[in-house]
């Protein structure tokens, strides 16, 4: 089957029921998208499908179709995405394992809500767990990313 990931067309031989997460990681070598729970509880596997945040651990690859998949590796263009820049500025990360998922969720939020309020941020990011507890800085960084993107 054909899969469009980060602007490239891939020919993938995985069984259709294989979750997109494992196709990205094990077939395409895109290991920035993480496995955390396998049941859409933690958000570590968040990628964009036509710009919308989805949990790739429960999405069969056969259901992707012609939609565009964007992973953390494909988020930046020539320079880092405003969310990534804000994450560095705000010193968000700790162990870092959940952060690709957090960043993809934040980037999808800012696309539809360039100036999110606290409730928007809560709604968009409460599905993403962080065991290190970086939530306070995540909130600050989403607001900072909004400023960077609007500047």
């Amino acid at each position, binding site marked *: 089957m054909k899969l469009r990931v980060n602007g490239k067309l891939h020919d993938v031989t995985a069984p259709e029921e294989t*979750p997109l997460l494992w196709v990205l990681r094990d077939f395409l070598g895109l290991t920035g998208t*993480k496995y*955390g729970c*396998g049941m859409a*509880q*933690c958000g570590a596997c968040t990628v964009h499908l036509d710009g919308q945040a989805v949990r790739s651990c429960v999405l069969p690859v056969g259901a992707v179709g012609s939609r565009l998949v964007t992973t953390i590796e494909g988020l930046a263009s020539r320079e880092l995405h405003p969310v990534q820049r804000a994450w560095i500025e705000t010193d968000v990360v700790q162990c870092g394992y959940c952060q*690709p998922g957090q960043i993809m969720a934040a980037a999808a939020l800012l696309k539809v809500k360039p100036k999110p309020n606290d409730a928007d941020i809560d709604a968009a990011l409460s599905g*993403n767990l962080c065991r290190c*507890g970086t939530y306070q*800085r995540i909130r600050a960084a989403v607001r900072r990313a909004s400023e960077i993107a609007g500047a």
Partner: protein
Amino acid sequence: MDGLKDVSRRQFFKTSAGGAASLVIGFYLPGRSVLALTQETSAPAAAKLPSPNAFLRIGADESVTVLLAHSEMGQGIWTTLPILIAEELECDWSKIRVEHAPAAPAYFHTAFGIQMTGGSTTTWSEFDRYRQAGALAREMLIQAAAAQWKVDPKGCRAEDGFVVHRGKKLSFGTLAAAAQKLTPPSQVKLKSSKEWRRIGKATKRLDSPEKVTGRAEFGLDVRFPGLMTAVVARAPVFGGKVKSFRAEKTKAMPGVKAVVEVPSGVAVVAEHFWAAKVGRDALEVEWDLGPGSGLDTEKMREEFRALSRTAGTKAAASGDVEAAMRTAETKIEAEYELPYLAHATMEPLNCTVKPGRDRCEIWTGTQFQTGDQAAAAGVFGLKPEQVKIYTTFLGGGFGRRATPSNHFVVEAAHVAKAAGMPVKVVWTREDDMRGGYYRPMWTHRLNVGLGSDGMPIAWRQTIVGQSILEGTPFAEMMIKEGVDETSVEGAADSPYVKAIPNHWVGLHSPKPGIPVLWWRSVGHSHTGFVMESFVDELAGAARLDPVEYRRRLLKDHPRHLGVLNLAAEKAGWGTPLSEGRFRGIAVHESFGSFVAQVAEVSVKDGQIRVHRVVCAVDCGICVNPAGVAAQMESGVVFGLSAALYGELRFKEGRVQQSNFHDYPLLRLHEMPRVETHILPSAEKSGGVGETGTPPIAPAVANAVFAATGKRLRRLPLRLA
């Protein structure tokens, strides 16, 4: 693990002979353009100085590569240890690169004598060694420059990556080759604290760029040609063994390469994770369950309670408790309970092993390199030095990746050996959650008598819970007269208890057969809750303000008082709160640091909501205030997940929880505002990775009491 701070390297060697002590590996000097010094630290005069080549390399391209003797698992040492080097080296901060060191004796912990990360010890245990390594390298670069200029080295100094002398300057990169041929000085002078330019200054993390782009490599991300993925079917109860299994269906599935039996179960080895996982689902295994199938949380609670009514083994004792109790004006009895907990690191356990004829390579996120190396060597019949360990980033540690049994590395070694190919063993979330090595369940019973002034005059406490160290190489030095120090730390040595002339703290260590392990803050994770909740109860009985009561009890403990008073002041203790909000406070020492927290809480329809946490910390010399604040926030969130939700339960030997839907963690919308205040201090650095966790559960429970009048003595906190 706090007790480990007293352990000398020699003691550990003695007790772990055959394991760590037999390891001798020559340090490998990386090749070109490095500041690789020929003289190792074997000479007696230089024995106390680190070999700088083990800890940093300076490249001709001006890069300064810092090698970490410890594992980065979120706690920020990827930045802290380079700060210590750079403080003395005077290099250009933007040229710093960081790598995990290989497993080798050069990187043994300065206090424990093995390579490991734990006990919140990295910063204080490396405070001298990393500064010395930086200073040695600086002196050699200066010597190299002075020789080239034919001037007195005393007239030269290092500055931002250059050696300078009266308007002349040479970069570190151009001097590195000449410097590496020099003999390191036998002693170096370190800066005084007044001269520090980096230590004490908030510094942003160095690992952010790779972690926000997905480039950072965790154990689960290891890939190379020919690498297979395995998942293991393990017994559904602890201690269970494989009786028989049928693998025909599994073996016929696409992508499955092998099905092998290993001591821990049956491994399905496949070309990728999903094939291995689906293959395991199709496996039919019959188990010999053994006695573990009788485990039941409610039965265990009853047993623990019964034990708590008897004295137990002495952990601390003074005077005549019974006589003092008879003179007490008020007597208070309380029972506290805490459940088994999983570490639930975001990255589930995994380990990659590439077997070879006379060597073996391992990639994993571990906190315990030396033990893992020796244990894997044992599986393959190799010498430890034939096992290479490449430490990846750890997707969370919290103690889970420091296993004295080395179980997840040993299992992966068995799978790779049996399959005869390179294998990455991946634990699913369910495997990880149900795989044991939990924070033990605890019951405390306290009987305390108060004098006419409301202050305690007799204290009797019995603690019941599994020993973490029993059966590990740490047992001999840290289980003293039947008492595992990590079971009673924070209680037996509590300033409250020690100030009472008549006290008894006893311990029972039942053995239900559940694998247990240190979980962020170890013994303090239960003693902090119990002591700080119970002292609040005593304050209530004495009709005294909780802060004032603690001030009286802690009058001879200035560092406790310092954080207590600072947290109370910053939180506005005693000032009115908005409607429906209530405060609770707790103060606790652990890992050489002192933390007080005030939690602001509301209760609505039986739901506890934490809005704000004011945290005051005295961690001695603070190397990176930004890192300390992050660790305080982190400790608070970790403790809140346990306080509000954390509980693993057993029924017929099976762990009932399996994933984040039934073992919830705090989520972003529940995150309180955390304000951290660092008390300036010139004392020796304490740990900060764990010390933020113990006070939060009692601070919240005390606030819930203020809000509802209900004293919650069991975690997780439930009002219904």
